[in-house]
């Protein structure tokens, strides 16, 4: 299989501080790839390189290659938004626009250039169903989403991300704000979504990564210590630090 994302020798600096060191990895399509590691080890930074969100930071600088479907992400001729559209992201906290439930999802469709009202409405319905939220919200699509529970808001964010028709979905600790009853819902959702999308998933909960992912990478102090099949990472890690982390002795 040809990888959908290839990262070669990626280094990232914020100002003078080096955040990531010599990262190289491939991401295969239609799999869940998880990045695990203690907090502040650079997980968020890695995934924000993949959709160029780091560009918003003034002092951000990087070296190395990031190829999406063989195309350099940072190449000048590539329209950043075109690529970013293929890679959608769900954040730690549910960040919703101050628009109705319907409009939040419809926004992504409009960004893609879809203007026809029935077409947009179909996309909204479909994405809400895919995000397993349809039954909860179908009767009040035009109300304020802040009335939903945090988990449901996160599902709405997922629906909005789906409405971009991305190839790659990035989740940055999507369950960190959720309680024990809502977390499994998101985890199951990710499992279903992987049949259609390539998923990159960041978490600082070891167990969650073990449950959800096919491939896991362990980040420590800005280094990608080890990346491989989740089973292998959790049962027979090759690096000491990985072993210490997955057994709970580190971080």
């Amino acid at each position, binding site marked *: 299989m040809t990888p959908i994302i290839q990262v070669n020798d990626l280094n990232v600096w914020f100002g003078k501080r080096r955040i990531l060191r010599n990262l190289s990895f491939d991401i295969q399509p239609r799999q869940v790839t998880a990045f695990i590691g203690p907090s502040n080890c650079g997980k968020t930074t890695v995934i924000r390189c993949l*959709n*160029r*969100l780091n560009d*918003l930071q*003034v*002092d951000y600088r990087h070296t190395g290659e990031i190829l999406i479907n063989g195309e350099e992400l940072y190449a000048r001729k590539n329209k950043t*938004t*075109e690529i*970013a*559209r293929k890679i*959608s*992201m769900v*954040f730690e*906290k549910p*960040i*919703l*626009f*101050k*628009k*109705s439930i319907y409009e939040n999802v419809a*926004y*992504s469709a409009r*960004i*893609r250039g879809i203007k026809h009202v029935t077409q947009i409405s179909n996309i909204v319905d479909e994405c809400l169903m895919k995000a397993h939220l349809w039954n909860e919200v179908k009767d009040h699509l035009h109300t*304020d989403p802040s009335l939903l529970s945090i988990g449901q808001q996160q599902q709405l*964010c997922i629906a*909005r*991300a789906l*409405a*971009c028709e991305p190839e790659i979905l990035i989740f940055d600790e999507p369950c960190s704000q959720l309680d024990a009853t809502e977390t499994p819902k998101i985890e199951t959702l990710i499992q279903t979504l992987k049949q259609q999308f390539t998923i990159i998933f960041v978490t600082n909960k070891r167990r969650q990564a073990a449950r959800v992912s096919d491939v896991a990478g362990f980040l420590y102090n800005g280094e990608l210590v080890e990346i491989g099949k989740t089973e292998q990472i959790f049962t027979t890690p090759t690096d000491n630090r990985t072993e210490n982390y997955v057994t709970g002795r580190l971080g």
Partner: protein
Amino acid sequence: MDKTKLLFNIIAVPILIIVLTVYLTLTFTVPTVNSEVSFESMNINRINLVKVRLMWMIPVLCVAIIVSVVIAFVVEEWLSTNNLIRRIIEPQIIILSSIPSIVYGILAIYYLVFNPISSSYVSLAFIVILLVVPITTLSAQNAIRNIDISIRHAAYAVGATKTKVILDHVLPLSLLEILGGICHTISRTLAVAALCILVSILVESPISGQTIVNIVHNIGILLLLVLLFSIVSSFLRKNPNVMY
């Protein structure tokens, strides 16, 4: 609903400006201005001349406000925090905006009331610009800065372009606060105008019962407008969580 509330706010400010313009146009008589050197030789009513000059401030005010908002957006959206131009402009804006309006009031009194030469129109325009631009720019900048960065992240993450992010999110989210700042500026400018009219009346006529009536007649409504704009300003600046 929320949309109509927003619409009302957007319409309210231009309407207030129009009301002000109409009031000034209807109440004030327009004398012919020629370039004689002293008021005495021109033999015209000083109060009326002051009013004509105040009318001139209105278009200048409008342009200055628009320019300020544009400056604020350019600085906040296109110049990064370590950009040289921004590092030069920003302190100037802050320093200028902290000059109390009475300083401009005194300058305005000189050019409006005591300077008979018509070239003082240019000077007046400068005074208005100095009075308006820094404060409006600063408040608009703050309004833009107050928007949670995460909203931008979310918009970029669904593939919005920079223009889209500004038009769809930054502008609607900061609009009320920007309008609040504009109202605040307008009320400041009106207060200076009221001051000028007051001085011109006092210079023209000795203090008597008639003078007092004259003052109340001429600046009463102006001061009411000042109050109105201040109230609207503080109301808008509360930045309610409306959906957009």
